[in-house]
């Protein structure tokens, strides 16, 4: 579906870019959001509100550091709670950004061009929010450096057979590589902003960030080589990250966790929630900044299709979990499967099925895929559903362990909610800053798209 082919019936597919755009017009349109557009009252009010929420996050973390993790709802046996639910949820959201920027790049999918930049930004901010949770969950975040191998005076070293240490390496590598990938993609656009900057401080900032990029043929040659290699490296990386996250569960012997379906089903779930988040962000953004000509209805429809496909993989994962529980005949697994349906947390499980499996089936209909309000609502539902999935996995298994004497109950406290809502505010605030501070769509890639469109689509993306 690179946009080159004719649809059955012989008519041309809709273009990925509104017709009539030139190199200069795409450059103007995208760079003006950063360089010349005044800050509107809507942006300022939104930013002030989000800043307030980030202060709530600061308060929650400050109180946590003062009092310890006891202010949360976690207990024994439920030692993980919201912190790990939120960690897995956030890191999953990041995965769509890498999928769009790396995997769709390798597959020559033209529709990635207008959404890759802000999807990558979304990845970075989501990874930042994700990383916060295990850090503060340690209880003494100022000791977190113990997890890295360094020659300590105590003579001890990390335990490399533990999935939790794998996680440290996977998430920190993912964060680093995503940041580099994003920066390399931004480099030519920073040079564009430098050349078009009107004020002195814009010239200094973008001049420094663009590092003297000149766009010479030799520059581009090495640039494209590095970009392609990064895409090739990020592709297995993104699959490995959620696989390692799933190992945190699957390597343990806890019923409901100890299954081999976890890695693929976690990766699919990550991409599912990530695309939902891309839609949640793209739909208001294209409207607010008049980018409908770049992020077209066809883009939204394409993302809806990816959600439908990954949603079905996730549904298959839920089914296999059940099937294997009964097929294995392991009485703890069977018991846990029944607990999901009849236990104290059954309403969460049914809500999860409703959000993640039933609602997205509406995406089979083209009318729904092209209905923007419906897509927006559905993206929120899927985000909620994926959060519930992680809640079900973490809480039901830990509250129904092997021995009834070890069973427990979990309920989150106001500090759990404050921390979670706080990261939502942090994430959105960073997106607000990003949209006004850096080009939210890759300008040089859009110029390339204009070039290809004017030459009968013979090029690669």
């Amino acid at each position, binding site marked *: 579906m690179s946009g080159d082919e004719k649809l059955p019936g012989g008519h041309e597919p809709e273009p990925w870019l509104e017709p009539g755009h030139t190199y200069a017009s795409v450059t103007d349109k995208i760079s003006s959001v950063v360089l010349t557009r005044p800050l509107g009252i809507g942006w300022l009010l939104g930013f002030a509100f989000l800043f307030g929420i980030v202060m709530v996050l600061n308060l929650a973390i400050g109180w946590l550091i003062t009092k310890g993790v006891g202010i949360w709802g976690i207990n024994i046996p439920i030692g993980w709670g919201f912190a790990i639910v939120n960690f897995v949820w956030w890191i999953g959201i990041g995965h769509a950004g890498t999928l769009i920027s790396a995997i769709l790049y390798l597959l020559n999918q033209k529709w990635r061009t207008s959404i890759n930049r802000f999807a990558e930004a979304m990845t970075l901010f989501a990874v930042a929010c994700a990383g916060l949770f295990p850090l503060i969950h340690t209880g003494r975040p100022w000791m977190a450096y113990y997890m890295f191998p360094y020659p300590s005076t105590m003579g001890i070293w990390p335990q*490399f057979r533990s999935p939790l240490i794998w996680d440290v390496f996977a998430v920190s590598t993912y964060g680093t*590589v995503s940041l580099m990938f994003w920066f390399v993609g931004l480099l030519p656009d920073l040079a564009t902003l430098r*050349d078009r900057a009107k004020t002195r401080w814009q010239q200094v900032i973008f001049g420094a960030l663009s590092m003297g990029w000149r766009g010479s043929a030799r520059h581009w040659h090495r640039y494209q*080589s590095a970009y392609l290699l990064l895409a090739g490296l990020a592709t297995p990386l993104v699959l490995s990250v959620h696989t390692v996250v799933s190992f945190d569960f699957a390597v343990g012997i806890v019923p409901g966790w100890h299954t081999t379906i976890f890695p693929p089903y976690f990766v699919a779930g990550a991409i599912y929630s990530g695309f939902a988040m891309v839609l949640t962000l793209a739909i208001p953004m294209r409207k607010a900044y008049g980018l409908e000509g770049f992020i077209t209805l066809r883009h939204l429809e394409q993302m809806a299709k990816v959600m439908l496909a990954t949603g079905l993989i996730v549904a298959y994962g839920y089914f296999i979990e059940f099937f294997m529980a009964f097929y294995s005949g392991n009485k703890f697994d069977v018991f846990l499967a029944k607990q999901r349906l009849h236990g104290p947390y059954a309403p969460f499980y049914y809500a999860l099925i409703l959000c993640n499996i039933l609602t997205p089936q509406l995406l089979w209909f083209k009318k729904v895929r092209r209905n923007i309000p419906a897509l927006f609502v559905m993206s929120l539902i899927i985000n909620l559903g994926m959060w519930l999935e992680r809640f079900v996995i973490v809480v039901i298994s830990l509250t129904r362990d092997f021995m009834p004497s070890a069973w427990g109950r979990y309920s989150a406290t106001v500090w759990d909610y404050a921390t979670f809502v706080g990261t939502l505010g942090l994430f959105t605030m960073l997106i607000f800053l990003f949209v006004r501070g850096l080009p939210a769509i890759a300008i040089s890639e859009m110029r390339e798209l204009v070039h290809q469109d004017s030459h009968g689509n013979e090029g690669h993306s």
Partner: protein
Amino acid sequence: MSERRSQLFGVMGEFSTPEDLLAATKKAREAGYKHVEAYTPFPVEGLSEAVGFKWTAVPLLTLIGGVGGGLTGFGLQYWVAAIAYPINIAGRPYNSWPAFIPVTFELTVLGASIFAVFSMLALNKLPQPYHPVFNVERFSQASTDKFFLCIEARDPKFDLAETSRFLQSLHAQHVNEVKDEE
């Protein structure tokens, strides 16, 4: 500026389409110019070959970074788990290599990515805040919608009048001298 000694860096012609620039670049090379450079707002297929640039060390350095990262990753874990701090975990061997694969993999990717990015920057000699081509006023369009060909003065065949005429004969819209201030 006037007290500073300024010397000639080259002559630059401006084109409005990538096809014109590509054709002009090929003609300049055919005419015997060696030190030519083309500047474009997006990558143009075939242009780096046209300026005579065929091979870049970025992939090789990326491979070296990846292999180095992987060896470091496995070596670190082996050394920690088997030599520096051996602990018996559920009777597994000290060198329990399957458990070391995830970290080895992550460090392979990390090493390769760091080498890919930094070798690209280093070979492009970035960061480089000053370059003579920025002295041409119209060059700011090179990051928007104009395409430039610069024939550099160090080229043995370079002659200011002759080379400028040559660029005009290729239908360059504007031909500018590029000054280098020392």
